[in-house]
């Protein structure tokens, strides 16, 4: 259940292949790829720098991944997150989850992204039409977390 923090791009097909190759117990693989858009609330963005907290980033991603593996029966999972300078269209993050059944794979990938967005120590600085500045955290990302509250799960 690896996590990787890297400057370089990743290859979705190769990552999925590495996780699933030769296995016949996986029925469902979900990937999420986050990419850089050139538009931020109507303003043109020309480049972005991703800063992170080396050491804590890996620890936090591992914690999030461990929690997903406790909640869903995953055959494999992977988180790759880039840092450094990125251009519009560039990949930012890849999450892969593999399970025997599709709902576990979907939910676990969705969960990993929600937690990564609010817990992994990354910060985006954008450059563009609107000048240069640090991206504000979204309140909607915090709200998304409430979907995964254990007590809600229990009540359903």
């Amino acid at each position: 259940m690896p996590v990787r923090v890297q400057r370089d791009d990743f290859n979705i097909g190769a990552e999925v292949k590495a996780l699933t190759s030769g296995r016949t117990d996986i029925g469902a693989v979900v990937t999420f790829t986050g990419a850089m858009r050139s538009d931020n609330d109507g303003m043109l963005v020309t480049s972005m720098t991703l800063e992170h907290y080396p050491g804590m980033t890996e620890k936090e991603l591992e914690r999030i991944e461990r929690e997903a593996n406790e909640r869903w029966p995953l055959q494999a999972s992977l988180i790759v997150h880039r840092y450094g300078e990125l251009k519009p269209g560039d990949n930012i993050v890849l999450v892969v989850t593999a399970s025997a059944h599709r709902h576990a794979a979907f939910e676990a990938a969705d969960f990993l992204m929600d937690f990564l967005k609010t817990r992994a120590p990354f910060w985006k600085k954008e450059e563009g039409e609107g000048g240069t500045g640090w991206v504000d955290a979204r309140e909607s990302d915090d709200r998304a977390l409430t979907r995964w509250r254990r007590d809600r799960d229990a009540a359903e």
Partner: protein
Amino acid sequence: MGVKLMYFAWVREKTGIGEERIELPEGVETVADLMRWLKGRGPEFADAFHRSEVIRAAIDQTHVRHDARLKGASEIAFFPPVTGG
């Protein structure tokens, strides 16, 4: 030996340093205490920790709240809400 302090994103830009090593002053027992003390270190730190309620903290690479105690900490980090993904 003291503790290592780390600053990220706009907290780092405002303080002007990425990391430093300090001795925790007498009476500084929580994250909130430490931020109050840092504010008094000069205009850069005053500016960086001006809206300290929005700043997040981690002790030894684990997210903590502002009322977390510093005792035993070897690395304390301050940063804005995260925006990865």
